[in-house]
């Protein structure tokens, strides 16, 4: 009996040691795992334009957050289809179906798996060639390297010699240096920089750069939460918890502290002041979409009958959006017999006609 207990104890300790060893190797010492063993676990199709469903087999939480995001709707959104003339507008393609997102480089549109819009592969799978290198090819050589080539005299690039296809070694890129058996990973600091998002959100990036704010796109729109990167049963548990960015790409949540609205009577008018206090870009902001804030001032008599309704539209495409830490003032003339005023601000995102209340003020006149 005693022998069995000792054996059980040794087995339990050995199992614990193995688990601890695997945990250590996965999180801190992957270089000690023999390469043939790593290759056995590799799933090469993950680097070959895999669908998000495939990624979700391990990265369940990230997938679920992304599925709810506007990024996942980029190609199938009804508003997008309508506004892009059934997706035929060329200017929209690069960012609604990017082939490969690299920091500071506007992507090319892709031809495969378009329904998934902006999803895992375009943002995370690419080679180690410098940004700007097209997928599957190195940049064309300079004229000096192409001896007696007619195009170097000013001809067209199409007749440049075909170059060796290679955009570097493909890997799953992300902000962490970690080990993942199914696919090679590569740490890339760009994932923590606004420049990465600015590949598509170029105007917003420019606005943000102008503010000098230290908050990045990721810190507000992908706030991190302590979690495991993978949820696959058992194997997922071997990954240590770490801050994981919210792949729901938060948007449009304008808090009380973010946008101040004040109203006063001045010079025979109601003066309404709006101040973007905390958001380090225009509010609303968009490169090509058309999100809007609607500011209304409704004047009523003592019986509550509407006498006048004023409106201002605050939108990036109208060049009236609210800059960071600046106050915009709107004046609405008073009318005789007006006793009360209701001032309210509503937000309409680019992808919907539905509006939500942002602020509301009642005033006795």
């Amino acid at each position, binding site marked *: 009996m005693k022998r069995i207990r000792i054996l059980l104890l040794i087995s339990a300790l050995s199992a614990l040691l193995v688990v601890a060893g695997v945990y250590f190797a996965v999180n801190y010492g992957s270089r000690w795992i023999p390469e043939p063993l790593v290759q056995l676990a590799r799933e090469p199709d993950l680097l070959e334009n895999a669908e998000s469903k495939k990624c979700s087999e391990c990265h369940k939480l990230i997938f679920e957050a992304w599925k709810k995001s506007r990024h996942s709707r980029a190609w199938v959104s009804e508003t997008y289809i309508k506004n892009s003339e059934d*997706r035929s507008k060329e200017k929209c393609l690069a960012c609604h179906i990017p082939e490969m997102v690299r920091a500071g480089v506007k992507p090319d549109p892709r031809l495969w798996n378009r329904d998934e819009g902006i999803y895992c592969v375009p943002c995370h799978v690419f080679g180690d060639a410098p940004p700007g290198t097209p997928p599957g090819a190195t940049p064309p050589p300079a004229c000096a390297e192409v001896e007696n080539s007619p195009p170097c005299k000013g001809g067209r690039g*199409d007749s440049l010699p075909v170059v060796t296809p290679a955009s570097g070694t493909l890997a799953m890129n992300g902000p962490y240096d970690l080990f993942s058996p199914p696919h090679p990973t590569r740490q890339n600091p760009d994932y923590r920089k606004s420049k990465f998002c600015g590949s598509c959100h170029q105007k917003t990036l420019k606005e943000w750069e102008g503010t000098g704010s230290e908050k990045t796109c990721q810190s507000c729109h992908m706030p991190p939460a302590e979690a495991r990167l993978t949820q696959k049963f058992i194997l997922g548990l071997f990954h240590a918890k770490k801050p994981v960015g919210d792949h729901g790409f938060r948007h449009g949540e304008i808090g009380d502290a973010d946008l101040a609205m004040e109203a006063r009577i001045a010079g025979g008018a109601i003066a309404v002041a709006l101040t973007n206090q905390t958001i380090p870009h225009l509010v609303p902001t968009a490169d090509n979409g058309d999100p809007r804030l609607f500011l209304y001032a409704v004047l009523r008599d003592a019986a509550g009958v509407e006498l006048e309704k004023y409106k201002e539209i605050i939108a990036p495409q109208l060049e009236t959006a609210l800059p960071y830490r600046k106050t915009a003032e709107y004046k609405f003339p008073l009318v005789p017999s007006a006793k009360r005023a209701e001032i309210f601000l509503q937000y309409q995102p680019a992808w919907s006609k539905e509006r939500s209340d942002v602020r509301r003020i009642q005033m006795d006149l």
Partner: protein
Amino acid sequence: MKGHYKLALTALLILLAVLPVQSFAKDMVAKEPPKSLDKLYPPVNKEQKWVQQMHKISGHFGGVFVDMGEQDWENAEKHAARFVESYKEAADMVPEWKDYFDHESARKFAEEVKTRDAARIGKAAGPVGKTCGKCHDDQYLSVWTRYHWPSADKIAITDPVDEKELKYGKYMSLLSGAFKGVTVNFGEGQYDRAKKALGGFKKRFMELKSVCSKCHTGDAVKQFYVGEASAQAFDGMEAELNSPKPNPGNFWKHVGTLGYEGCKKCHLTHRAYAIVQEIWEEKEEARK
């Protein structure tokens, strides 16, 4: 003297190479482009493959003459051979247009380049250049209208005054009506009415900025059509209408500025293509 003769001949040949793109047709019919072109343009293709192919043909055809002028016969022959290849590729890309292509003339042209005789090369360039010109005459406008100009009719715009969503054509009628509300009342000396109408007209006019962004990615285009000059014209009209005795000379000058900056510049650029599209859309409707 011999050098001058060569230079003049080269210039003439280059001119010949360019000439075919110009139209001499008396009657112009803008037929809709063939369906197979769809696959050579976004969104079906990720690039404008047809434009690239045209550049390829044109680059090699022009390359022959550039190299010929430099007596660089080796490269001239390479360009001639690549011209024949790319000409053939283009014919295969749009089967509906196969009759525009004359492969025998293209082949003869490449053969003549090997003779290194400028006069013979120029003579052989004529027939093949004409095939380019014929296709351009018939199809150039249609292709640009279809693939380079989004349809204005499909633009929806929310009226900033009553918040109804309207098709672009309807919106332009509304804008035109709002404009007349200002000018007709001003002409009649009914300044209060003109002032009230100006508020709505200004909102609707300025909303056009959002229309620019439906196709254009840069903001400069907004400034070109609905920019500072238009804003100043509105300020000037408002100032006149707020004054006890509006000055008609000043007022109409501002109206003229708006008409030139916004209406004329935009119509001059966009209207012709939109008219062709409208005719096609009407035909399409009639077919249904």
